[in-house]
């Protein structure tokens, strides 16, 4: 593959004037020497979601899209890894993972057999701010699929035997993750930015925290958060709205909310916006170095949201500045990119690339350089227009598939945003100006607030990196402790 992101699919509506100025070659005399110009663009309309709230407080949203005979249904719980107690990281994800491992009427094997016999899929897990269970099937099978979905969300039994089995799988998975420089850098980056605050820990837990999780912790979390007044059901695809509402009522209508009030999180959520920390994780057997620049970003509901995602698009994507400088101009990586991860509270901004160990320091410099450059001058209109087109195109292609459609609607609902945002997205992106981008870069992405994490074979890049950052910390992989913002295991006595 040529590009780093896996190939996604098609659908666009917006097409700015073709930037011929960027691409013409000198000898343009034959009809074939220059590209033919585009025809007039065609308009597009996204589906309009409709919704009802059941008496129990369960919000049900339906979005019809009949282009293909597929339906997806997602039950969202409005809390995820951020409610893990500090010593029990991974609890929300394990709780969600256990939903499909046994209910009052079916054991784990029967659940898998039931959904797979339909040719369908059933996935459950937690992310930041939400937990979810999702089914996807041919539209003719949606009735049976929603019955299974309701069963796993409402009637899980959390058998000890299943808890042990899943715990072992999580331990194996984390062990494999800790063999990957990129995964380690993400874990360390989160601790650097969030310290011991709720977004700081690994979502899937650490070997130590997983060992501490008990059945009663799981039952308690499920009881506290899995309730209709803290849930949203989104059904999308080839299904009539009335049929979808009927199914929701049949399988979720008698789901009662408990008398106790929803718990209010009381932990300090403040991220560390100070920056300036440079952490090297020395992993001598690493086949490549992972270089991450991390800092605080913004929350999803921030009025700067569209400024933020357009700014990120100037940096990220195949032809974004990071990939231009690191891959296209210098051949230093298979791909460099950045993400502005917006959440209920302030989330992280991350710019990253993997490179041969010897180039680790150079790539760190390039990442920092590009973040700084963005604050010193606005991008030209000629640069900004295509970067906005990328956002719009990606957004639209995502809505072409039922999973993407349901995911987008779910995300708007989760953060209390209007569902008609999907039809306003393009206009909001188009409204962002070069000055907006610079303003966002100055106010939200200042390089002084940035931290650097490099995971790799340190002896290859440390001499150069420590010249640039004399205060850097070096932590041998064996001493890395992901349970704390300090990142280092306490010395054994």
């Amino acid at each position, binding site marked *: 593959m040529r590009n780093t992101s896996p190939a996604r699919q*098609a659908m666009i509506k917006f097409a700015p004037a073709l930037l011929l100025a960027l691409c013409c070659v000198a000898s343009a005399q034959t009809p074939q020497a220059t590209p033919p110009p585009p025809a007039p663009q065609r308009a597009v309309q996204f589906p309009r979601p409709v919704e009802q709230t059941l008496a129990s407080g369960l919000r049900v949203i339906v979005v019809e899209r009949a282009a293909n005979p597929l339906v997806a249904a997602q039950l969202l719980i409005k809390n995820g890894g951020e409610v893990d107690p500090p010593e029990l990281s991974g609890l929300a994800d394990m709780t969600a993972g256990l939903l499909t491992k046994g209910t009052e009427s079916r054991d784990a094997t029967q659940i898998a057999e039931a959904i797979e016999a339909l040719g369908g899929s059933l996935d459950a897990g937690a992310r930041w701010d939400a937990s979810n269970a999702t089914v996807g099937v041919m539209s003719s099978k949606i009735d049976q699929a929603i019955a299974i979905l309701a069963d796993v969300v409402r009637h899980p039994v959390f058998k000890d035997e299943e808890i042990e089995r899943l715990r*072992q799988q999580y331990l194996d998975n984390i062990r494999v993750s800790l063999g990957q420089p990129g995964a380690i850098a993400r874990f360390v980056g989160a601790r650097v930015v969030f310290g011991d605050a709720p977004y700081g820990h690994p979502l899937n837990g650490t070997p130590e925290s997983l060992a501490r999780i008990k059945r009663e912790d799981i039952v308690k979390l499920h009881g506290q958060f899995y309730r209709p007044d803290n849930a949203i059901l989104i059904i999308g695809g080839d299904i009539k709205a009335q049929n979808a509402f009927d199914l929701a009522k049949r399988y979720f209508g008698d789901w009662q909310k408990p008398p106790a009030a929803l718990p209010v999180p009381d932990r300090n959520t403040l991220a560390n916006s100070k920056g300036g920390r440079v952490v090297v994780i020395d992993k001598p057997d690493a086949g490549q170095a992972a270089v991450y620049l991390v800092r605080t970003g913004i929350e999803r509901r921030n009025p700067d949201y569209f400024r933020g995602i357009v700014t990120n698009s100037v940096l990220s994507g195949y032809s974004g500045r990071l990939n231009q400088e690191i891959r296209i101009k210098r051949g230093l990586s298979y791909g460099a990119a950045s993400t502005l991860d917006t959440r209920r509270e302030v989330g992280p901004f991350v710019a990253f690339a*993997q490179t041969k160990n010897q180039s680790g320091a150079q790539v760190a410099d390039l990442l920092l350089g590009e973040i700084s450059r963005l604050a010193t001058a606005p991008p030209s209109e000629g640069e900004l227009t295509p970067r906005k*087109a990328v956002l719009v195109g990606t957004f639209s292609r995502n809505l072409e598939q039922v999973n993407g459609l349901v995911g987008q609607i779910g995300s708007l609902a989760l953060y209390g945003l209007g569902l008609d945002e999907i039809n306003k997205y393009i206009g909001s992106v188009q409204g962002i100006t070069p000055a907006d981008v610079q303003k966002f870069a100055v106010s939200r992405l200042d390089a002084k607030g940035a931290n650097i994490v490099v995971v790799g074979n340190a002896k290859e890049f440390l001499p150069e990196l420590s010249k640039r950052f004399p205060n850097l910390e070096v932590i041998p992989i064996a001493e890395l402790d992901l349970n704390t913002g300090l990142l280092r295991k306490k010395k054994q006595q």
Partner: protein
Amino acid sequence: MQWKNSVLVTLFAVLLLATSALKDAQAQGGMPQLKFRDRTLPNGLRLLSVEDHSSPTVAIQVWYHVGSKDDPAARSGFAHLFEHIMFKSTRNMKAEMMDRLTEDVGGFNNATTNDDVTIYFEVVPSNYLETLLWAEADRLSGLNVDDPNFKSERDVVKEEFRQGVLAPPYGLFFHMLQQKSFQEHPYKRPTIGSIEDLDAATLKDVQDFHATYYRPDDATLIVVGDFDQKELDAWVDKYFRPITKPDRPLPRVNIKEPPRKGEKRFTEYGQNVPLPAVGFTYLTPRQSDADSDALRVAEAILAAGESSRLYHALVYEQQVAAEVAADAELREDASLFVLFAILSADKKPEDAEKSLLAEIKRLQDTPPSAAELEKAKNQIITEQLRQRETSNGKALALGEAAVLLGDANRVNTDLSRLQAITAADVQKVLQKYLTDDNRMVLYYLPQNAKTEKSVAPAPEATTKEGR
């Protein structure tokens, strides 16, 4: 968790699941027929097109019938490196102009190389169709790459090698699984190649490769989406018809992979192996063979989903593996049926091997139940429906049928082939191919297991070196 390497396997996995079914899906939910037009220009270029106005976009693909099996001698990885070079300067385009014509207008492009084919694809707003046809014709008719561009892109491919093979814990395992599976056929060289062979490649190699394989009679152009057939035909005539077909014959690989005569076993050690892995491959026939459909169903019965036999036995019941997979890796000349297990902590590779063999034997001894067969077919059909949600996915399915199966119609008829597979067919292909003498076994173990007397449980502190 993703275990596979993108260049080598991902596209193939998509393609494998892609060709399948129809009649049942129509009964169960209505899988639309792909009504395609099939036309060949006098210079040999084939055009397949499907008009579909459901969204104002169009997918354009060009399939060249050249893959890593055609890598020149001592140039493993070259077909894939060449694919990258196709995005540099051409006769009338500057380097990266393809990105200006796609990404900058809200579309995307990509390309992928596997053992048998190289595929270039773009999805753009439909008003850009003519522009992209011009661009694809331009890079088919001539490259114009300079040395700095060539070298920097070669460095990118070397980073792709490191990122796919060296950095992830099982990159080398999958790399070696393919290397050790073929004795004679060039499939023994994985698509990504090797750093040394990439370093040896020159600009001259690029021009030679283009002249040899990038010719109209080796290309299939596929267009799916929002266009008018008459306009499309006129544009294809305008931009592709003038490209001349060389007089030289197209070279084709005709090396036959000999049958395996007896089990082969390998034990390899890696630097970064968090948990040991065990892999099997069996040599199976070419993709167009009649047994391929039954092998695909066998793959689903063995390993699709948590109710599959291998997952249930090895991951759920015995907890000997953290991850298990089966894959009917179909190829044009000779295929592999691959099974692998990543072990759970403190488990022995011998135990995983024994369990894998027991599950194979069980399916050889007793045919699958009717419900199990039905489930496997439903899984394959749903997967295909998912792929065909997009015009790009439809074009991939059509290209696979036309180029790799040699019959574009199979994009619509494969569902009835799938439906015709019986439990006895599945049992029969297992008995025929998954034999002891046809097995290659690879153990992939952590470096520190090498010094120990037996393959003991992996010790906890594997990363304490250097101190």
